[in-house]
């Protein structure tokens, strides 16, 4: 039975893209119920930094003992069911999280016509493996920052790697890669549930909650400083808008600078055929696999061209994910320009999964480094750097449909001159990334709450509403988002087989990719990000967080 896209609603019940919208928005709506005092999301299990036993003089604050390494977020944040969620304990909260997401993802798997039994088995293994890795990654040796140690009164000479939550992400990726490359039968068994694009797109919808929640968080945290709180909240709301508008620059760069550049490199230096050069140009310059497929279709290339380029993209994206966050943090652009680094990441990394994951890793690395370097005098709110990476990428993603449409017109009528061939306008919609709709809906609804009934936190009534909104938002943007990021890292590793690079007959394409990416795309991305984002600062929350 052929699978075609014929109507505007094609795929709404059967594609991962749409299912990330449905799942993301379902939990987003559950989170919104806290506005009316009903907390149905506080069960989400979240890790804490832990040690086997506390040293003399240390206290349980940011760092706890290992028996308390997980907690239900509602046990800390809920306004109506705190005792209930606290009583779940670490194991109880993990089990409830498992049950709820198993039901949700299995429904998605059923509608997407996957083998539900195999999905369930794979999901269960990936879920618990992810939590195990999350636990290990939150050991104080890996994760604790200078501020964490200080707040828990640890001895001043305590050595840690200060990787923050980044340690867990790296570990998840490593474990996934080990499975994907050394335990191939297991990787095949897990493949039905190793769905990094689904998990990351869902996480990006949750990130929409985060972006909308940033000003709320800033106000509520800043409220401790009195009138200054509302000012910080407004500042944060403006920053998210600035990120949104400045991110538009990425679109111009990707389509009008990167694409012609890579196309020229492919044609002039490597003498690749036109269609291959076009597909490769889109994959390296725009948004990876989706661009490779969209462009392949637009230029009427044989599907195998897009498939080969896609395989290359996936492997290179993982290489970027491993290399770039550390490079951007410690070499260039560094912590003096965190938003520049985030935005450059959005332009350089070509799949949504790898980009959002790399942005999250960069966020963890940068925050940990700046706290360490300033001895806790500068503390950035989590998620702002991730947002800059994702916002940039989303801008690029949104136009792939339009780009492929224009390319198709150009190709069909000017280059190949097909007689009688007409390109339907509906192609733009079929190629539009649907998860973006969930991201914007979540962002703008929380922003509407902030500026509307929340009155930007300038009145006691407004503050009360924002406090209720916070309960639901935290469970989604912190608990669920981080969990789905972890699942993405793990799944990305599981499906990445580096041997594909050696086995497949990629020939020159490997070198086009390598040269274009490292000598052209990444340096230009940083320069452009610098031009458009330099000077954008993340508000310093140190006064609130530490004192």
């Amino acid at each position, binding site marked *: 039975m*052929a699978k075609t896209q014929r109507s505007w609603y094609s795929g709404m019940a059967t594609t991962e893209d749409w299912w990330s919208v449905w799942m993301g928005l379902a939990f987003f709506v559950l989170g919104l119920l806290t506005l009316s005092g009903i907390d149905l999301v506080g069960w989400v299990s979240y890790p804490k930094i832990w040690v086997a036993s506390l040293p003399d003089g240390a206290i349980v604050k940011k760092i706890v003992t290992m028996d308390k390494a997980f907690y239900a977020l509602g046990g800390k944040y809920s306004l109506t069911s705190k005792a209930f969620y606290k009583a779940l304990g670490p194991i109880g909260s993990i089990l409830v999280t498992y049950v709820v997401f198993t039901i949700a993802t299995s429904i998605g798997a059923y509608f997407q016509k996957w083998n539900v039994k195999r999905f369930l088995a794979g999901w269960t293994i990936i879920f618990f493996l992810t939590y195990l890795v999350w636990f290990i990654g939150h050991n104080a040796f890996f994760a604790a920052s200078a501020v964490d140690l200080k707040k828990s009164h640890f001895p001043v000479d305590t050595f840690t790697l200060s990787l923050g939550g980044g340690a867990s992400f790296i570990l998840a990726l490593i474990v996934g890669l080990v499975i994907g490359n050394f335990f191939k039968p297991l990787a095949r068994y897990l493949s039905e549930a190793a769905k990094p694009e689904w998990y990351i797109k869902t996480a990006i919808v949750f990130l929409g909650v985060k972006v909308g929640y940033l000003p709320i968080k800033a106000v509520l945290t800043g409220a401790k400083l009195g009138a200054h709180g509302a000012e910080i909240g407004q500042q944060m709301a403006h920053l998210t808008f600035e990120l949104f508008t400045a991110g538009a620059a990425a679109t111009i760069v990707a389509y009008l600078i990167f694409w012609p550049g890579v196309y020229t490199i492919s044609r002039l230096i490597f003498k690749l055929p036109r269609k291959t050069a076009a597909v490769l140009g889109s994959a390296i310059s725009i948004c990876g696999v989706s661009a490779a497929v969209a462009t392949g279709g637009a230029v009427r290339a044989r*599907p*195998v061209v*897009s*498939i080969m380029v896609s395989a290359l993209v996936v492997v290179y994206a993982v290489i970027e994910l491993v290399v770039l966050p550390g490079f951007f943090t410690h070499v260039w652009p560094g912590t003096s320009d965190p938003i520049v680094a985030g935005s450059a990441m959005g332009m350089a990394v070509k799949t949504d999964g790898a980009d959002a994951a790399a942005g999250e890793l960069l966020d963890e690395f940068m925050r940990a480094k700046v706290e360490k370097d300033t001895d806790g005098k500068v503390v950035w709110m989590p998620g702002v750097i991730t947002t800059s990476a994702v916002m940039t990428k989303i801008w690029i993603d949104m136009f792939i449909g339009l780009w492929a449409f224009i390319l198709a017109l150009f190709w069909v009528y000017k280059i190949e001159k097909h007689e009688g061939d007409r390109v*339907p306008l509906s192609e733009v919609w079929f190629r539009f990334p649907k998860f973006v709709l969930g991201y914007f809906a979540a962002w703008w609804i929380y922003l509407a709450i902030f500026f509307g009934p929340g009155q930007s936190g300038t009145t006691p009534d407004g503050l009360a509403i924002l406090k209720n909104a916070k309960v639901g938002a935290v469970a989604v943007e912190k608990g669920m988002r981080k969990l789905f990021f972890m699942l993405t890292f793990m799944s990305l590793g599981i499906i990445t087989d580096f041997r594909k690079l050696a086995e497949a007959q990629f020939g020159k394409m490997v070198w086009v990719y390598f040269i274009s990416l490292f000598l052209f795309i990444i340096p230009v991305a940083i320069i452009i990000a610098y031009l458009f984002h330099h000077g954008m600062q993340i508000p310093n929350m140190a006064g609130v967080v530490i004192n």
Partner: protein
Amino acid sequence: MALFSKFRKNKKGKTVEMILDHDGKNWTVSNDSITLAAPSLDSLDRKVERALEEELKQGQSINVFMSFNNEVIPMWIRPYMNHYFNRILELPLQYQS
């Protein structure tokens, strides 16, 4: 502007729906009554035109809506992009000299 007028729907004439596919070697189109294959889209289009010759002889113009069989895209790629392309072929073909 001529370029952009190309995607406007030709409301005259009847529409025939077909599934477009690629078997690794040839492009194929099929519906309940015909299946055709050719190594290039251009030669496929000509075969389609020949197959519908009888109807075209009656002076009718035909839009052949070809929706691509996205099953061709491997399962692991579909989460990224699950649509290859659709096209409309307007018959009779307007041969350029």
